[in-house]
């Protein structure tokens, strides 16, 4: 007769145990060889939670060598995968998201009361018992900064070729081409007319793609906001620098088109709930440059209006745009030397930066605010596709 022995399922306490010799396999399957697409439809940042559950078991068994080894291998694994995929926005987002989540877990379950205020009683049971991983948190924070910088570099690389064409050259307002300054051939930033011609829609499509990936990968909303603030800064800097160097775009009609383009970008930010990100503020110099192109530039009152409006442009930039300003037709006059002198006299007390062009490589410092998770470790399921059957649930 067949005897069935029924074993009572032990309660899963949210820890994962593995043999020391399986560490390399764990890192390979969970970090270096993992494709983010495999995890679509699962909990965002699943690798970070799995790694925390492994760390927790090593902490529970008071095995400091195992904790050291796992954290070092994890960090080296993440660095390796980022190096290999250094132009892959999705992969870089995936690891930024997971590195930050692991950092949040090490805080949330550190036992430090300052990080436990939002924990449930069950989550408090999942705190580390033996080790203080503050120093490893610093390493993960430094790594997150590196990954963020890689992410911005990739995004800027995709965006940059579109900026001049979409912001300054493309005409989407009907009837504006008839009021372009005469005597200038249409110029393209690619030198070959027609090539690399992008409209604003292309920038918006690219922004949508970035936003979609970052949301899908569960990147913290505060980090998404910082990414867009940085990208809008680049749009501002590249566009303004071109405006400051090109006579053919310093006209009333470009000012009109530019203002329209900026309003489309502002609309996009509002639609994505990113208007509090500081991104709009980074566009302020460009907004003022567009207005400067459209304002009247003749009387003392016009000069006063310009000076009180253009607070985010330096005197040097205002004067340069006025010097480059190209009348639309024979009925519009050039900006007179006297008018420019009036502006200079009014602005002489300003303590403006000396350089004409903006540093388009400038990066705002990034912050990773603590973002605890409401998820409880014992509720996490490890999908078979991860090939981690050697992990024992404890």
């Amino acid at each position, binding site marked *: 007769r067949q005897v069935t022995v029924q074993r009572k399922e032990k309660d899963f306490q949210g820890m994962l145990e593995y043999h020391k010799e399986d560490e390399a396999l764990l890192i390979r399957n969970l970090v270096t060889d993992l494709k983010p697409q495999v995890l679509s439809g699962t909990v965002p940042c699943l690798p970070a939670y799995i790694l925390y559950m492994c760390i927790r078991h090593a902490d529970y068994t008071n095995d400091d060598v195992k904790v050291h080894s796992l954290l070092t291998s994890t960090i080296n694994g993440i660095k390796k995968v980022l190096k290999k995929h250094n132009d892959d926005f999705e992969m870089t987002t995936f690891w930024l998201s997971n590195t930050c989540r692991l950092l949040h877990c090490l805080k949330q379950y550190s036992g430090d009361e300052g990080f436990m205020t939002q924990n449930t009683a069950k989550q408090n049971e999942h705190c580390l018992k033996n080790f*203080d991983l503050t120093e490893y948190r610093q390493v993960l924070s430094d790594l997150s900064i590196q990954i963020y910088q890689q992410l911005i570099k990739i995004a800027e690389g995709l965006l940059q070729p579109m900026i001049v064409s979409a912001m300054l050259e493309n005409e989407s307002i009907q009837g504006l081409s008839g009021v372009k300054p005469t005597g200038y051939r249409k110029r393209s930033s690619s030198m070959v007319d027609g090539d690399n011609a992008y409209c604003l829609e292309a920038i918006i499509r690219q922004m949508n793609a970035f936003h979609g990936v970052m949301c899908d990968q569960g990147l913290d909303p505060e980090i998404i906001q910082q990414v867009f603030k940085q990208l809008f800064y680049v749009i501002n800097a590249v566009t303004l620098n071109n405006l400051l160097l090109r006579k053919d775009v310093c006209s009333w009609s470009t000012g009109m088109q530019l203002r329209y383009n900026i309003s489309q970008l502002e609309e996009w930010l509002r639609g994505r709930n990113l208007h509090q990100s500081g991104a709009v503020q980074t566009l302020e110099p460009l907004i003022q440059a567009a207005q400067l192109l459209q304002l009247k530039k003749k009387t003392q009152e016009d000069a006063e209006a310009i000076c009180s409006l253009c607070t985010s442009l330096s005197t040097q930039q205002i004067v340069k745009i006025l010097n480059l300003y190209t009348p639309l037709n024979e009925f519009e006059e050039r900006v007179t030397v006297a008018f420019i002198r009036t502006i200079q006299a009014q602005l002489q007390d300003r303590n403006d930066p000396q350089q004409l062009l903006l540093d388009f490589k400038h990066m705002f410092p990034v912050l990773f605010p603590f973002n605890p998770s409401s998820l409880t470790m014992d509720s996490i399921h490890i999908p078979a596709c991860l090939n981690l059957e050697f992990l024992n649930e404890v």
Partner: protein
Amino acid sequence: SPQRPRPRVLLKAPTLAEMEEMNTSEEEESP
């Protein structure tokens, strides 16, 4: 009365740059 938890032991960690150095030298050593 509830027991006070034992203080946790601080695990010393190398910096990110030191980790990279160690990793590079390990890679160089391995054939």
